[in-house]
C-alpha cells in the first residue's frame, strides 16, 4: 500500500502517455511523484491504449522514419486541418519539440517498428509503436515503476483545491475509498470529456446518444470541469472533437481503432433520408478520415450508409463486422431500412454522372462525376456489379478539444491571464490550445509527449526551488 499521508513533490492526474511522460520526466529530475490512474491496471493508459504512432519532425531518415519532415511542412499540415484555428507559437514549439519525442519514448523502453500494411501510408511522418499503444503504455509503466513513481490504479482525482491559482491538495477516490493527496505541484493529464455523455448532450442534445466513444470510458472530464470552475482559463470550442467514421454496430465505448471504416472513398455515402451529403472522393483518406466523424454527427439520426459493389471490396481493409450484402440495390435498402426507390434513384443518378477514367485505389485518380451535387471527385466508379454492399456508419469520437489554457511551460493559465503558481497540464486536457478543429494523425501523441515532458520538467524545477 502506498503511503498517502506524505506530501509528494508532484501529483499527476491521469494514466495515459501524457501523464506518464510527465511523471517519468519529473522523477528523472529528482522529484517524488505519485500518479493517479482512474482505470484498473488492466484498462490503464487512457486513450493511449488505442493509439498507434506519433507524428514527429525529423531532418532526415531516423530509425523507422523515412525521408524528412520539417517544421514548415508539419506546420502547413496542421494549419490546413485546423483551418488556422490554432495558436501558432505554441503549435510551432510543439512541432519542433516533437523531434525529440521518439528518442525520449525509446529511452522509456518503447520500441518502434517500420510501418507495414494498413497504416494510412504514414511511414514518412509518423513513428509507429511496435504492437501499438498498449505496448507503449506497458513500457512506460514499467519504466515508471522502476524509477520509483508511486502508481495508484482505480484512483480518480475528483477535486483539486485551488486558492489564488495555487493548488494545495487533491480529493481522490482511491480503490473506492475517499482520500486526500498532498503535493507541491500538480499536473493535469486526465484527458478530455468525450466519455461524459451528459456533458456532450449540453452541446449536441439527443444526438450525443448516438456518438460512439472510441476510446477509454474513463475520460469523464472531471478534472477539466473542476479546474474550469475554479478560475482556470478555458480554451477551445466545446463542440469540437476528433472523430472518425465508425461501424454503426461498434460498442458505444472502448471499441478502439478496429471499428473505423475506410471504405468511404470507394463508396457513395447516404444519410437516413437517402441523400448524399459530402464528396466521398475529395482527397486521399489519410487527409479526410478525420472529417467524416463530424459529418456523420451532423446528419439526421447521426447515421450514414456507405454503399458499394463487389468491385470495391478489395480496395479497403477488411472490416470487423461483415457488411450487409444483397443482389439488388432495392434488397439492400430493405436490409438497412432505407427507402428502396429513393436509394435506387440515388445510385442511378450517381452511375449516370460517373465519367470514364482510370481507377487507381492508392492515389488521386481521374474517376469522377460530372453534374452531380455533391460531386464525387475521385474513385468514382459505377455501382453496378452485384452483390452490393452496405457498411452502416456512426460518428466515433476520439477526444474533445475543450481545454484548460496553458503557456509554453505547460503551465495552466488562470482566467485573469496570470499563470498558475503550481499547476501544469499535458495531453488531451490541453489539446484545444493547438487544435481548434480538425485532426492530424499521430498529433495527439505528439502533444501528449511534448507537453508531458515540459510539464514534468517544469513541475520538478518548481519543487526543487
Amino acid at each position, binding site marked *: 500500500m502506498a503511503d498517502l499521508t506524505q506530501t509528494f513533490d508532484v501529483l499527476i492526474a491521469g494514466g495515459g502517455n501524457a501523464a506518464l511522460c510527465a511523471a517519468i520526466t519529473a522523477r528523472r529530475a529528482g522529484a517524488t511523484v505519485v500518479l493517479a490512474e482512474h482505470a484498473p491496471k488492466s484498462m490503464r493508459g487512457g486513450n493511449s491504449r488505442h493509439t498507434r504512432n506519433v507524428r514527429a519532425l525529423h531532418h532526415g531518415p531516423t530509425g523507422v522514419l523515412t525521408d524528412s519532415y520539417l517544421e514548415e511542412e508539419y506546420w502547413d499540415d496542421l494549419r490546413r486541418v485546423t483551418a488556422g484555428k490554432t495558436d501558432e507559437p505554441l503549435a510551432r514549439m510543439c512541432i519542433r519539440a516533437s523531434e525529440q519525442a521518439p528518442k525520449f519514448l525509446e529511452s522509456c523502453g518503447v*520500441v518502434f517498428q517500420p510501418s507495414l500494411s494498413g497504416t*494510412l501510408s504514414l511511414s514518412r511522418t509518423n513513428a509507429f509503436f511496435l504492437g501499438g499503444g*498498449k505496448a507503449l503504455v506497458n513500457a512506460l509503466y514499467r519504466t515508471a515503476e522502476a524509477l520509483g513513481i508511486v502508481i495508484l490504479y482505480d484512483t480518480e482525482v475528483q477535486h483539486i483545491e485551488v486558492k489564488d491559482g495555487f493548488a494545495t491538495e487533491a480529493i481522490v477516490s482511491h480503490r473506492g475509498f475517499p482520500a486526500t493527496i498532498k503535493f507541491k505541484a500538480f499536473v493535469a493529464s486526465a484527458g478530455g470529456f468525450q466519455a461524459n455523455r451528459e456533458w456532450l448532450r449540453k452541446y449536441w442534445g439527443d444526438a450525443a446518444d448516438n456518438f460512439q466513444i472510441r476510446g477509454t470510458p474513463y475520460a469523464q472530464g472531471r478534472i477539466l470541469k473542476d479546474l474550469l470552475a475554479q478560475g482556470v482559463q478555458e480554451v477551445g470550442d466545446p463542440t469540437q472533437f476528433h472523430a472518425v467514421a465508425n461501424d454503426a454496430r461498434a460498442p458505444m465505448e*472502448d471499441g478502439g481503432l478496429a471499428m473505423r471504416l475506410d471504405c468511404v472513398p470507394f463508396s457513395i455515402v447516404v444519410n437516413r433520408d437517402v441523400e448524399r451529403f459530402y464528396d466521398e472522393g475529395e482527397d486521399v483518406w489519410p487527409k479526410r478520415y478525420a472529417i467524416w466523424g463530424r459529418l456523420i454527427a451532423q446528419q439526421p439520426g447521426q447515421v450514414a450508409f456507405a454503399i458499394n459493389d463487389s468491385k470495391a471490396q478489395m480496395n479497403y481493409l*477488411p472490416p470487423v463486422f461483415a457488411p450487409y450484402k444483397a443482389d439488388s440495390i432495392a434488397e439492400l435498402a430493405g436490409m438497412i431500412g432505407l427507402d428502396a426507390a429513393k436509394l435506387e434513384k440515388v445510385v442511378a443518378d450517381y452511375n449516370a454522372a460517373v465519367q470514364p477514367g482510370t481507377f487507381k485505389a492508392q492515389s488521386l485518380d481521374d474517376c469522377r462525376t460530372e453534374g452531380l451535387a455533391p460531386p464525387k471527385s475521385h474513385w468514382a466508379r459505377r455501382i453496378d456489379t452485384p452483390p452490393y454492399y452496405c457498411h452502416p456508419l456512426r460518428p466515433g469520437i476520439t477526444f474533445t478539444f475543450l481545454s484548460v489554457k496553458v503557456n509554453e511551460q505547460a503551465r495552466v493559465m488562470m482566467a485573469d491571464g496570470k499563470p498558475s503558481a503550481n499547476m501544469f497540464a499535458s495531453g488531451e486536457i490541453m489539446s484545444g490550445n493547438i487544435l481548434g478543429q480538425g485532426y492530424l494523425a499521430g498529433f495527439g501523441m505528439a502533444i501528449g509527449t511534448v507537453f508531458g515532458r515540459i510539464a514534468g520538467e517544469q513541475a520538478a524545477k518548481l519543487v526543487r526551488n
Partner: protein
Amino acid sequence: MAAESETVAEARRQMEICNACRYCEGYCAVFPAMTMRRSFTEGDLTHLANLCHGCKGCYHACQYAPPHAFGINIPATFAELRQESYAKNAWPAPMGRLFERSGTVVSLLAALGVALALILVVALQDPAVLWSAQRGVGAFFRVIPHWLMITLGVVTFGYAILAMAMGARNYCRSTGSPQGGFDPGPATEAAVDIVTMRNLGGGGHGCNDLDEGFSTRRRWLHQALFGGFMLCFAATCTGTLYHYILGWKSPHAFLSLPVQLGFWGGVLMMIGAAGLAHVKVITDPGPVAKKLAGGEFAILALLFLIAATGLLLLAVRHTGAMGAMLAIHLGLVFAFFLVMPYSKMVHGLYRGIALLRHAREKRTAPAPAAAA
C-alpha cells in the same frame, strides 16, 4: 466434412478483429500471413495457429485483450487450435484421442517403458546384472542384449517416424499446405526460422515470456532443449557408426565423440526442460491455454528424465548401479519414441510445415490489402 469446432469459430472471430486492427504486424509471421487473407477457412486458421510460436507478444500489446469485451487472446486460442490439429491429423486416426489426456498418456507410457525394460532384463538375462558391476567392451549388452536394444530402438523410433510422416501428410492435405515440390529459397528461409527461432524474437528484443516485459528467456531455453536433443541424437548416430562401420564397441571413453556429444546434449536438455517448465510455472496465466498444461509439463518432465538418466548412467557406468540405470534410461527413451507422435513433440513438425508454407506464400501472395 466434420462440423467446425468451437475453437475454430473462436479463432476466426478473433482473426477477423485482428485483420481490421493489424497493430501486431511487427511481431511475428502470424500477422503478415493474416494480412494476406480477407477470410479464414479452417485450413487457414490451422496454418496460422501452427505458425504461432506462443510468444504472447500480441496478447500483452492487445487493446482488445480480456477484460475487454472482444476478449482477444490469440496465444491461448491458437494453442488450443494447434492441439486440435495434432489430434485431428494423428495417425492412425483413433490415436488422436490420446491428445485429450496427453499428460496421463505420457506419464503412463514412461512408467510402463521403465517397468518393461527392467522386467525384460530380469527375464532375459541374469537378474544379478541389475546390481553387479559390468565393465569392459560389451558391458551394456550384458544388461540388455544387443539384438534386443537395436530391435526396440528401430521399432519404436521407426514407428514414431512413420506415424509423424503420416500425420504430416494428413496435415498438409487438410490445411492445403504445400505437398511435394522443392524450392530452395523458401526451404532455406524456413530452416533458418526453425534454427534461429526468429519468431520468438518479437521483432528483435524478445517476447513476453513472463509478463508485459520483453525477454528472450524462452527462446534460449528452447534452443538449449532443441540443441541438446539434437546433440544426443548425434551421439546415438555416432555410436552406431562406431559400432558398425569402425567396429569400435561401447562403452566409449568419456572424451570420445559419442560420449561428449551425449554429455553436453544431456546437460543442455536438462537446462532447457527445467527452465521451460519453470517459465510455465511463473508466467502470467492470462495468455496460457490451461487445459494443455498437463501434456506440456509431462513431455518436459520426460525429456528432463531421459537426459538425467543418461547422465547418471554415464556417472555410474562402472558401478553396480549401471544395469538398473541403463534399463531405466532405455525404457524412458523407447517410451518417448512411442509417445512422440501423440504429444507436444509434433509441434516441431507442424511448425516447420507452417513456416515453409509461409515462406512460399510470401513469395507468391499479392501484396496485402492496404488502406488508402
